[in-house]
């Protein structure tokens, strides 16, 4: 479907608005050309659904309430195969239910975007409060070997921008991309300036005649490890299966070589570009002896701690992951050679902390906070 940017801008209204993170996800999706939302309401992500239900019909899109999160994920995969840029949003318990189909989307190389407005767990936990509880689940929650792209914005403006970026990356890599915010950002309002100059990426379509098309073969016009995507109903035939499949899409489940080649390619199409996908922000790092490493909402508290520490004359610096997955291994390694200590600030009992330790050569400690409140600057500085 052709994106009518003028219409989208008109639907979104004034350029400057005071909106919360859940609505920022919707604005980003619309600006990226999303025309399908399949979802199931869940606090604190329900406002995404409500807003998409209002917005989709205005841009000729479709918003559908499914019977649960499993079906929501299935619906957006189907919509993507029909050519739509598709989107869903959920929170902890719903995210758990989606895991099976995340794997299916990875295996079938389906571009989809999922927003997770995280809350605490395990199980239904604290529905109305905030946490960063799914940072490992997003990476490892489905079974088998796969890689994922996950972004973690920390302002409402960045939530719009990261959502647009997520759609672009999903199209470029033919993979699910996650926008990991949390209940606090989801329900927090800041002023945003709606971006009007946006570069959009569209999935590469086959140019060869249908009889020559190899749906899961090497990419011919773009990335070699990302095959062209033939939208259903355009004259090309694609057999789509979660089973191990050969380049023609047909199951070859007992062939070691086929499986090895397929799954390595699925992983490598993302990890080959690890450096290109790495995105982080630093502050006050030049003379820093201790680095506060964080992402998402926790990084706002880390900023408070940074300002306080600098006022007290402490040599503290700030390192914020904007892309959490694929993990920026090299950047963390370099950071750990620059400082004596890294304090990982996150709203869980240690998830990215373990990943940071894996690539660090210095002391790494955790400042983890749970229970729905964010860290106070003093709590973070107690670990410095």
């Amino acid at each position: 479907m052709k994106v009518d940017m003028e219409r989208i801008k008109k639907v979104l209204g004034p350029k400057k608005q005071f909106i919360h993170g859940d609505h920022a996800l919707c604005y980003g999706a619309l600006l990226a050309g999303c025309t399908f939302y399949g979802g199931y309401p869940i606090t604190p992500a329900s406002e995404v659904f409500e807003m998409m239900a209002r917005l989709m019909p205005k841009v000729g899109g479709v918003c559908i309430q499914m019977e649960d999160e499993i079906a929501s994920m299935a619906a957006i995969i189907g919509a993507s195969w029909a050519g739509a840029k598709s989107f869903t949003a959920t929170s902890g318990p719903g995210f758990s239910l989606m895991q099976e189909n995340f794997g299916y989307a990875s295996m079938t190389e389906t571009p989809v975007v999922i927003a997770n407005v995280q809350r605490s767990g395990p199980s239904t936990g604290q529905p109305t409060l905030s946490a960063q509880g799914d940072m490992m689940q997003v990476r490892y929650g489905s079974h088998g070997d796969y890689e994922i792209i996950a972004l973690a914005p920390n302002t409402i403006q960045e939530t719009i921008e990261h959502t647009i970026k997520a759609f672009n990356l999903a199209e470029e890599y033919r993979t699910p991309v996650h926008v990991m915010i949390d209940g606090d950002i989801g329900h927090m309002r800041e002023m945003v300036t709606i971006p009007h100059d946006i570069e959009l990426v569209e999935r590469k379509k086959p140019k060869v005649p249908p009889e020559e098309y190899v749906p899961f073969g090497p990419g011919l016009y773009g990335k070699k490890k990302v095959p062209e995507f033939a939208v259903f109903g355009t004259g090309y035939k694609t057999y789509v299966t979660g089973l191990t499949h050969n380049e023609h899409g047909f199951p070859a489940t007992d062939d070691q070589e086929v499986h090895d080649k397929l799954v390595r390619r699925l992983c490598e199409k993302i990890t080959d570009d690890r450096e290109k996908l790495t995105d982080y922000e630093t502050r006050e790092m030049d003379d820093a002896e201790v680095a506060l490493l964080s992402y998402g909402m926790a990084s706002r508290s880390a900023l408070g701690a940074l300002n306080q520490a600098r006022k007290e004359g402490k040599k503290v610096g700030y390192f914020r992951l904007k892309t959490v997955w694929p993990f920026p291994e090299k950047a963390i390694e370099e950071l750990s050679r620059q400082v004596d200590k890294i304090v990982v600030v996150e709203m869980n009992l240690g998830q990215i902390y373990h990943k940071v330790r894996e690539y660090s050569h210095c002391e790494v400690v955790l400042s983890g906070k749970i229970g729905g409140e964010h860290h106070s600057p003093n709590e973070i500085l107690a670990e410095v």
Partner: protein
Amino acid sequence: MRKNIRLCGSGGQGIMTAGEILGKAASVFHDFKAVQTQSYGPEARGGAARSEVIISDREIGYCGLTETQYMMVMSQSAFDKYNFDLTDDAVVVLDPDLVPYAEYEGAYKVPATRIAEEMGNKIVANIVMLGAFNAAADLVPQEALEEAVKDSVPSRFLDLNLNALREGVKCIRSGE
């Protein structure tokens, strides 16, 4: 300049709306930066509701309150729960009919619910409070606040809301 502001009461009173209007006034209709956060329980009505607004002339990093300089209160339980971090010179504006037992010297008492009822619609009590709160605490220019109200309420209730806002301002001005 960093103003740490808390608006609190119980669910359904329009605490979140008041916080949103204040933050919008500061950042969209004036040149401050603003962050509005909110927390509430699982109930649609009743239960503690809290909205925090930070207004600053610089980038806002930390989104929590380390202390509260300005507080608008619309229920006794909210006052009891949230007065712990008030600064010594905090500006507190409360509705005495809803917060009868507030022991806080110098608090502005604004019978917002009664005023709103007299105006014919109890639903705008939060806007009466907001008008009074801003007049007492001098948070954002009055014009910016009115613009934010216009931008936030359905047009058929616009006059009611603007009048409510001005009644709140009057309440503070007449007491001075």
